[in-house]
């Protein structure tokens, strides 16, 4: 009964047309006319001759070959077995500790595909040098191999020889000295003790390139403990610093955070900050009141202050300061940069008199970051010269460069039988020693640190050693017949949860600290006098510190926050002193700065042809030179740059003007605001009365009456009512100008280094710059009063005051919502994003640079040359090691395109994807740009203003919020908060 269904393909089949059957049999409906084709006699007489055919063939081959030339061959080596923790494209973060003998920080390291590429802060703030330290890891100028008297050797040979020699010294009863930087690692100290036990007569001497011996010795005299106190600037209401640059380089990068906490105008209270100094420091530039003095006046003024606090009369310069201190007992801090024990004893007495101990300054909770001892070092040098030292092992120090009396040290070195340097570099000191043993970078090392009482941080390797280095601890162990520092370290801390602590990067532990009381000390007394003539002092630059990282191109190109010059150190001098000496600074035809040169003699040592930079704020008859420059064995970037200020030492200077001009590389050539409202500022008093003070809105007269600038517009508004709307707030009151953000931006965004010559041509590539303005003696108000002409007024406004007020203003792409750049690009390479950013499509850019001209903030940077893989720009992007630091999420720009701040779009995309995967909203704390995460004072806050949980939303509504050049109505997504000074 089954009936097979029959399907027909067409009516012809249904009707049983015979054609259907015929077609079924015949697969090819028509016969292929092969014979006809081949039999065609015309074929041989076709117009395409054989010659033509060969021409076509040749042309096609050549064209195809040429087309194939375009693509470069990049080798990608895939993982054969994927490491468990590495997923390509996903970053891993490790907590570790940064310590290089000068800077200390607890940091979080971002690694991609096993390579550390970015440093962020973990438990402590970071500064520019700490941010840049990741590039120093990939420095191909590092010591790569153990060396013996300048010749490469291997570890086995070196170790065998060293052990033999050490044993021989031990048998002869000789003395072994270990000269190291301050050791913050308890386990290393234990190891050194183990080493001492094994070899008997071992001396361990610690030295700091920039010495804090004075404070340590004074504390020993006053309190019986040779430690540094911890300062709590956040608890202070009056801060007086005699030359101590505590926001920049002095002691600890964390003070900035405390300082800003004490100075939040929202609380209606800001700690009053006095700075008494001769060289304008970062700290001084932030002070509410800065008092200029010569270095020789410091002790006299301190003595005067002490007597004034005890009922004497204060010097007129410090009368107000004294009064403020008297009214704030127990709520003030006096700090001083002096390395003189007596002066520091005086400072201790003043702090004690004011009752600051255990209120704002804590000695029961000491800091262990600096432990160097100048006396020990001097003794060591004497003993070396007397031939009493048989072996010298150095670690993390470069005495041949950093010591003022390096000659004595060097001559002593020649008399030591066995000299071993454990060092990252074959530096000035290591070159003079018998064995140079490559140390490991902190990112390749295990370790621990005990920065202050009860706080411990751990160091873990984030990459296998790049070269044949071996960390110092491992070497020491090897030389006493032990091995494996990692195990040693783990065993050193048996009472902690190792994995959790390593994950967190820190742990706390009760630690014994002496209960201190102030001893009766003789308070030294000094006259209020100053020495005649010009005085010289050394200072540290934010970029270079003590010069350890001199071969780091990011740091070399980081403009000094005050002079805005990079790739140099120079003698800073006031305009008045320069005029006395007949020294000028002038701008040449392309705007670049030139300066005269001098020979300077201090402490019977002379530096020749040192350029002079006229620096507003430098006290008259004083000059200063930054340390960290004048390296001779730092590597290709650091060698031959500047002059070694360590070799001079502080003291009276003889200055002799010599001929010739020096070429500076400065990123900012004009120093005043020219009466424009660029950084809006007010005083705390006025701010309390009227929170809008100093922040007057710009209005335009229209036919409908006065209207604020943002309501007079021709623009079609972008719709930002839904989705994310990324905004950034920059608080000019809390920005201290430390430049950590600038380096962080370099690292995150693969910003190229262009070198001195290009910076000199005003072609620096910084996506984020920190503009610094000095106040001028001429103001619009004064001009109106004195009825000076506009010509005169503007001419005088160009000159900064000799005693200027300083403001810092970080400027990056403002991400205008009415962007002038977007309208003028002919190819739409820069256009607006739906989340408020101004995007830049590099591969669409043809490089007309119209956008850069039309940007009122001048934040767009053009790739004038190919900055990567170009021998003319021999920095990290022209180096196989240096390139490892590049962020794979950010493209390396080619020449001929404009680049600029993207608001770290790669980071935003990442957190958005993460949030999406997790099915959650983007959290405020995750929304960070490179600059906002690096900012130690939280001056830069980034987030989504459409999300009420984000801090930036409330900041946008602040009375202090304003946009830069608001009269242009560019509607930036970046806004600033007015600068407030406590002038009470």
């Amino acid at each position, binding site marked *: 009964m089954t009936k097979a269904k029959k399907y027909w393909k067409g009516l012809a089949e249904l009707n049983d047309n015979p054609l259907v059957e015929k077609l079924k049999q015949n697969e090819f409906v028509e016969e292929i006319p092969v014979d006809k084709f081949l039999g065609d006699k015309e074929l041989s007489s076709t117009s395409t001759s054989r010659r033509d055919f060969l021409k076509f063939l040749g042309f096609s081959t050549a064209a195809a070959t040429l087309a194939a030339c375009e693509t470069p061959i990049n080798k990608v080596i895939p993982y054969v077995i994927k490491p468990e923790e590495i997923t390509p494209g996903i970053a891993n973060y490790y907590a570790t500790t940064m310590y290089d003998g000068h800077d200390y920080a607890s940091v979080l390291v971002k690694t991609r595909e096993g390579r550390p590429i970015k440093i962020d802060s973990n438990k402590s703030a970071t500064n520019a040098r700490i941010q840049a330290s990741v590039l120093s890891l990939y420095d191909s100028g590092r010591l790569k191999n153990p060396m013996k008297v300048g010749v490469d050797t291997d570890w086995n040979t070196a170790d065998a020889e060293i052990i033999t020699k050490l044993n021989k010294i031990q048998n002869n009863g000789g003395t072994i000295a270990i000269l190291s930087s301050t050791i913050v690692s308890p386990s290393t100290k234990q190891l050194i003790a183990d080493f001492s036990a094994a070899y008997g007569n071992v001396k361990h001497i610690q030295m700091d390139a920039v010495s804090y011996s004075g404070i340590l010795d004074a504390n020993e005299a006053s309190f019986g403990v040779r430690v540094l106190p911890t300062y709590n600037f956040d608890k202070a209401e009056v801060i007086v610093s005699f030359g101590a640059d505590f926001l920049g380089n002095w002691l600890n990068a964390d003070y900035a955070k405390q300082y800003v906490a004490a100075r939040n105008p929202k609380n209606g209270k800001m700690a009053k900050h006095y700075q008494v100094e001769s060289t304008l420091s970062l700290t001084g530039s932030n002070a509410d009141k800065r008092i200029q003095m010569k270095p020789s006046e410091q002790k006299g003024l301190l003595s005067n202050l002490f007597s004034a606090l005890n009922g004497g009369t204060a010097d007129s310069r410090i009368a107000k300061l004294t009064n403020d201190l008297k009214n704030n007992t127990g709520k003030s801090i006096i700090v001083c940069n002096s390395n003189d024990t007596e002066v520091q004893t005086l400072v201790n007495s003043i702090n004690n008199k004011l009752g600051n101990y255990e209120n704002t300054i804590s000695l029961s909770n000491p800091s262990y970051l600096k432990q160097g001892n100048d006396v020990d070092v001097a003794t060591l040098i004497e003993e070396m010269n007397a031939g009493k030292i048989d072996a010298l092992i150095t670690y993390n120090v470069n005495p041949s460069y950093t010591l003022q009396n390096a000659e004595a040290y060097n001559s002593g070195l020649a008399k030591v039988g066995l000299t071993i340097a454990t060092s990252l570099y074959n530096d000035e000191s290591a070159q003079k020693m018998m064995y140079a043993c490559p140390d490991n970078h902190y990112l390749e090392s295990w370790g621990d640190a005990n920065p202050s009482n009860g706080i411990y941080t751990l160091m873990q390797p984030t990459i296998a050693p790049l070269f044949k280095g071996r960390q110092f601890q491992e070497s020491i162990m090897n030389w006493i017949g032990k091995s494996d520092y990692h195990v040693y370290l783990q065993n050193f801390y048996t009472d902690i949860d190792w994995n959790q602590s390593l994950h967190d990067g820190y742990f706390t532990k009760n630690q014994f600290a002496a209960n201190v009381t102030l001893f009766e000390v003789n308070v030294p007394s000094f006259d209020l006098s100053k020495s005649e003539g010009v005085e010289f002092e050394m200072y540290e630059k934010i970029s270079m510190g003590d010069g350890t990282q001199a071969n780091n191109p990011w740091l070399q190109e980081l403009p000094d926050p005050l002079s805005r010059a990079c790739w140099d150190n120079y003698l800073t001098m006031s305009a008045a002193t320069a005029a006395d000496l007949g020294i000028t600074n002038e701008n040449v035809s392309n705007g670049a700065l030139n300066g005269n040169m001098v020979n300077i003699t201090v402490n019977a040592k002379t530096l020749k042809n040192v350029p002079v930079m006229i620096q507003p704020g430098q006290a008259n008859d004083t000059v200063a030179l930054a340390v960290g420059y004048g390296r001779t064995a730092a590597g290709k970037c650091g060698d031959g740059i500047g002059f070694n200020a360590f070799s001079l030492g502080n003291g009276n200077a003889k200055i002799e003007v010599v001929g010739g001009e020096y070429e500076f590389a400065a990123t900012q050539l004009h120093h005043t605001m020219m009466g424009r409202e660029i950084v809006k500022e007010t005083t705390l008093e006025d701010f309390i009365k009227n929170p809008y003070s100093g922040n007057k809105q710009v209005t335009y007269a229209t036919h409908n009456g006065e209207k604020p600038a943002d309501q007079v517009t021709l623009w079609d508004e972008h719709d930002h009512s839904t989705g994310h709307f990324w905004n950034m707030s920059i608080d000019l009151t809390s920005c201290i100008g430390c430049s950590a953000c600038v380096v962080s931006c370099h690292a995150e965004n693969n910003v190229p280094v262009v070198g001195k010559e290009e910076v000199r041509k005003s072609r620096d590539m910084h996506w984020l710059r920190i503009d610094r303005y000095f106040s001028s003696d001429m103001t619009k108000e004064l001009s109106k009063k004195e009825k000076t002409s506009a*010509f005169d007024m503007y001419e005088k406004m160009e000159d900064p005051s000799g005693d200027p007020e300083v403001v810092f203003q970080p400027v990056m792409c403002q991400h205008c919502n009415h962007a002038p750049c977007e309208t*003028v*690009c*002919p190819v739409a390479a820069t256009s607006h994003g739906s989340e408020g950013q101004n995007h830049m499509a590099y591969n669409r850019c*043809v*490089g007309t640079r119209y956008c850069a001209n039309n940007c009122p903030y001048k934040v767009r940077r053009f790739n004038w040359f190919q900055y990567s893989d170009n021998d003319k720009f021999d920095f990290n992007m022209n180096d196989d090691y240096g390139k490892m630091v590049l962020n794979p999420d950010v493209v390396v720009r080619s020449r001929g*395109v404009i680049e600029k701040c993207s608001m770290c779009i790669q980071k935003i995309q990442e957190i958005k994807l993460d949030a999406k995967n997790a099915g959650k909203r983007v959290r405020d704390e995750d929304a960070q740009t490179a600059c906002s995460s690096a900012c130690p004072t939280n001056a830069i806050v980034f987030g989504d203003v459409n999300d009420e949980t984000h801090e930036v939303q409330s900041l946008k509504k602040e009375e202090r919020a304003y946009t830069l050049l608001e009269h242009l109505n560019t509607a930036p997504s970046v806004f600033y908060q007015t600068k407030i000074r406590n002038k009470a």
Partner: protein
Amino acid sequence: MQKEADIRDPLILGNKTYHDITKDISRPVEGKANKYWWILFSLSLVLFIWGILCMAYTIGTGIGAWGLNKTVNWAWDITNFVWWIGIGHAGTLISAVLLLFRQKWRMSINRSAEAMTIFGVAQAALFPLIHMGRPWLAYYVFPIPNQFGSLWVNFNSPLLWDVFAISTYFSVSVVFWYIGLIPDFAMIRDRMSATISPMKKKLYSFLSFGWSGKAKHWQRFEEVSLVLAGLATPLVFSVHSIVSMDFATSIVPGWHTTIFPPYFVLGALFSGFAMVETLLIIMRKVVSLESYITIKHIEYMNVIILLTGSLVGTAYITELFMSWYSGVEFEQYAFLNRATGPYWWAYAIMMTCNVLTPQLYWITKIRTSFVATFILSIFINIGMWFERFVIIVTSLHRDYLPSAWTMFSPSFVDIGIFLGTIGFFFTLFLLYSRTFPVIAQAELKSILKSSGSEYKNKK
């Protein structure tokens, strides 16, 4: 046959006949070049080659070869661009606007003036191309259908308007010029011997498009000329207006000025006429055209220069007044800085050359002197170059944020490229003067009987 007032001075001197005109115009094409031509030509060629090398160096290494920086992103490149474009303007004005106004004196000079336009615009067009960071991607600025997705050009950008304005101007100018050349090419063709110079004969036969001088040909010729003149006239005003919008639509103080379109057009005519004078005063000597390019022609042009120069001066002063009157401190400072800042010397050169120099033409003796006119025309050329330099560099180098203020100094490549375009321009012009009929002789013959000296004197 047209009538002309008897009191008007003759436009063709030397009692020329029709045949004389034919001979005079075809002499440079048929004869051999003299020594001066060869000296000038070699010099121009050397400059041109040097310019090419500088351009190659720029394209090979990057725009960093120039003196630009993060603040001054345009300087000599766009200065040269605007200068060359401006120079072109007189040609179109002479051939189109003066045609519509039936100014007969244009006939002796329009051919060369228009050649100057085309060669000038060719120089100008080089700069937008080579000033790009990635000139090999220059085709991105054209709205070409593409496979990049929705990528398209940005019609808001004045640079894009430039692309259209300049390409339209260039093509209309070329067509207009060429149409006028056809009867004259035919004249040369007819005089060529097929046996002595067969190649030349072939070439000119091709170039003259089969012109046979029929009445129908003449009728069409006249019609097309009129239509093209009508098309070209608005271009005289539109091109430089649009070029000025490169600046006027920006927000840079000193650029953002509504006066710019008329100001630029006038400046362009001013500089264009000066360049026509410079060229023609040389050319009338070098190729012996003293009878055709007379002091009367020069005087007419001087009058235009006096007018446009005075208007340009008024524009400068209006600009200063507006900046003060605006009450905007950024505007005020931009102009104060222009006049008294580090580039005061450039401003002084501009003011002297462009405002003071043309005023000398009130004096008849100067207005009717070849030597004085030649010298002053050079001054105006220099002054107009500096006008563009002043506008571009002094506005950019100190704009809104003093932190970014800097200066500009040209590199040898900047200078080399500018000299190279001058060399290129003169190379083209010198080649033109040896191969093209440099005066529109067919047209000129039409006024011989009304404005020729012989006929004037007869009356």
